[in-house]
């Protein structure tokens, strides 16, 4: 580390401490002992109350019920970004068919491969639990899907991209799963219109309990669809990222190494 960097770091730390001291002595720190009125409304209403979402998890009920349209638009931004990434890295059909011949090498040791096999099953179980309990405990579709996407990443590192594709998890299939899940989200969002209710309305339309288990109406459906959509979207991205560099170099016509 250069001397200049150390001096800069010291100045920044001193500045932070000094400024917080001034802030404290002038009593200017923001008051944060009470929840704001809007937050209180959500806390009171998420399970009990007149505008109930029948979910003890207040964040999930805001995410998929009270402010559900926000989340729908957020999901569309997320998938537009993934589609743009796939468009940036698109491969021609001819090159994709001949890529398998370049597969070579013995791969990593059996210890790594064995551990990855074990851990993958555990990750799938944990991520499914995160997604399916999203309406009861902290967690949900996004978090579970992100955890699920770790499995293809591990398999790509320990075995190879081609091992994953031989198992049937190709990029195109991931895109199909992703699109089907998006259609599922849209259908669940539009379903209340059949009963003359609002778009994305949850409570009187969807059953809050199924077989005595609390399912919080549409929240569990959204979480499941989002789980598959996010997991499949990330799988497609990771598969493209793992494509050998040679193929892209050939495709782009880059000559220098």
């Amino acid at each position: 580390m250069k001397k200049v960097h150390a001096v800069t770091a010291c100045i920044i730390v001193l500045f932070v401490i000094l400024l917080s001291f001034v802030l404290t002595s002038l009593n200017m720190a923001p008051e944060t002992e009470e929840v704001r009125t809007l937050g209180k409304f959500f806390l009171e209403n998420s399970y009990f109350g007149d505008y109930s979402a029948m979910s003890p998890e207040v964040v999930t009920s805001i995410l998929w019920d009270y402010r559900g349209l926000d989340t729908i638009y957020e999901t569309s931004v997320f998938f537009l970004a993934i589609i743009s990434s796939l468009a940036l890295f698109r491969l021609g059909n001819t090159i994709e068919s001949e890529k398998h011949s370049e597969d070579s090498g013995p791969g990593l040791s059996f210890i790594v491969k064995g551990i990855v096999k074990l851990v993958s099953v555990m990750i799938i179980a944990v991520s499914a639990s995160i997604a399916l309990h999203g309406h009861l405990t902290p967690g949900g579709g996004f978090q579970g899907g992100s955890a699920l996407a770790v499995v293809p990443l591990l398999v790509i590192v320990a075995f190879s991209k081609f091992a994953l594709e031989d198992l049937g998890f190709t990029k195109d299939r991931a895109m199909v799963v992703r699109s089907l899940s998006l259609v599922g989200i849209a259908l669940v969002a539009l379903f209340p219109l059949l009963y003359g209710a609002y778009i994305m309305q949850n409570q009187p339309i969807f059953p809050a309990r199924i077989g005595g288990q609390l399912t919080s109406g549409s929240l569990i459906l959204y979480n499941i669809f989002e789980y598959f959509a996010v997991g499949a979207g990330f799988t497609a991205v990771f598969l493209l990222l793992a494509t050998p560099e040679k193929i892209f170099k050939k495709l782009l016509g880059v000559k220098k190494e």
Partner: protein
Amino acid sequence: MIVEFLWSIVIISILGATVISLYGIARRPSLIKKLIALTILTDSANLLAIMVGYRLIYPVAPPVLPRLTEEGLKEFLATAVDPLPQALVITAVVIGMAVNILIAFAIIQIYRIYGTTDVRKIAKVIKNEGS
């Protein structure tokens, strides 16, 4: 008093991280470092939003109902933090992750074509190709 002081330190540190990340985005020539600075900016903005919803009391609880009874609700209201900033932040986190993926893909493609991620060198190459 000491609690307020520590609280102020946290807030000022987050603001400081925001300023440093803005410097990184504007002044670092490498695209990778710009991306890293952008993620720091996103994270400090998210952390600031979470701080706004936090409560300086003890004990403090996450916004998840511990028991499904009416009596538990009063106790829950006294301790639970504001859920709205958390719901907004999870939206922001996911969008931030997607945008980061897109930027990373673009940077990789730029590196493949130009052989560098230094914006000054890329500008020079583009200028030479144009003339």
